[in-house]
């Protein structure tokens, strides 16, 4: 088989990931119409979104086939920066209740 003929197989190879991503998107919409509290729904949707993103990064962006050093230098840094952004929440709750800083 020539290299050019082999190239058509990539679609079949990634179809399972494609359908899982579509399934996650559909599940998110279904769950959004259930009677969850906003916080519960947020957590569920974030878990599903992170799962979908991880699949896309690993398979579509081929990070799982890259050098391990690339993975280890990129992913922890992004997670660290995004976790550091979480310090804003206490202030947004303070604003919601219009409490001064001292409280």
């Amino acid at each position, binding site marked *: 088989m*020539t*290299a*050019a003929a*082999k*190239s*058509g197989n*990539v*679609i079949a190879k*990634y*179809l399972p990931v*494609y359908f899982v*991503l*579509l399934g*996650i*998107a*559909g599940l*998110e*919409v279904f769950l*959004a*119409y259930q009677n969850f509290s*906003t916080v519960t*729904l*947020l957590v569920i*949707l*974030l878990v*599903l*979104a992170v799962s*979908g*993103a991880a699949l*896309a*990064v690993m398979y*579509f*962006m081929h990070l799982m086939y890259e050098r391990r050093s*690339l993975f280890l230098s*990129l992913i922890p*840094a*992004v997670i660290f*920066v*995004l976790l550091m*952004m*979480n310090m*804003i*929440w206490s*202030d*947004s*709750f303070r*604003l*919601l209740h219009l409490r001064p800083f001292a409280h």
Partner: protein
Amino acid sequence: MWLFIISDAITFGALLFGYGYLRTASSDWPTPFKFNPSILNVMIMTVVLITSSLTMLGAVDSAKAGDKGKAGRFLWSTILLGIVFAGLHIREWFGLFDDGVRLFQNPWGSPLFGATFFSITGLHLLHVISGVVALGVIARGFAKGRFTAGHVETTGLYWHFVDLVWMFVVPLIYLLNLSR
């Protein structure tokens, strides 16, 4: 490209955190998105974008295999899907304009809704349009032999990233603001 993607991911992360901050701090955040047309439109957009990632994979693989014709067909399919996505996105925006949503006002509640919505979806739309232009340049260049399979692969990474960002925009911007 990976460094660009990381910095862009953090930019979108900061925007989404900013949106979360404002939404949490507002007691009258609007929930305007009805199933038809908004969520239905968003579902179609999601299918279109994920499908375009699949065609992009085909383009990269064909380019690496040296099959210029097939790579070109996959690249132009990806471009077409990107244009469809952008068109649906703009239709969604015009629907909200008709409802009276503007950058700093809307008929329902916190005026910051429009600012955050148009900033985040606008930046994503800008990425899609930039990606379509980049893919067009790469498709023509690759067909003429000016660009290599490496260029196609690098552009593919960017395109998959645009898809990845959408996976966070849909639940956080649309699904958490459903009209019930």
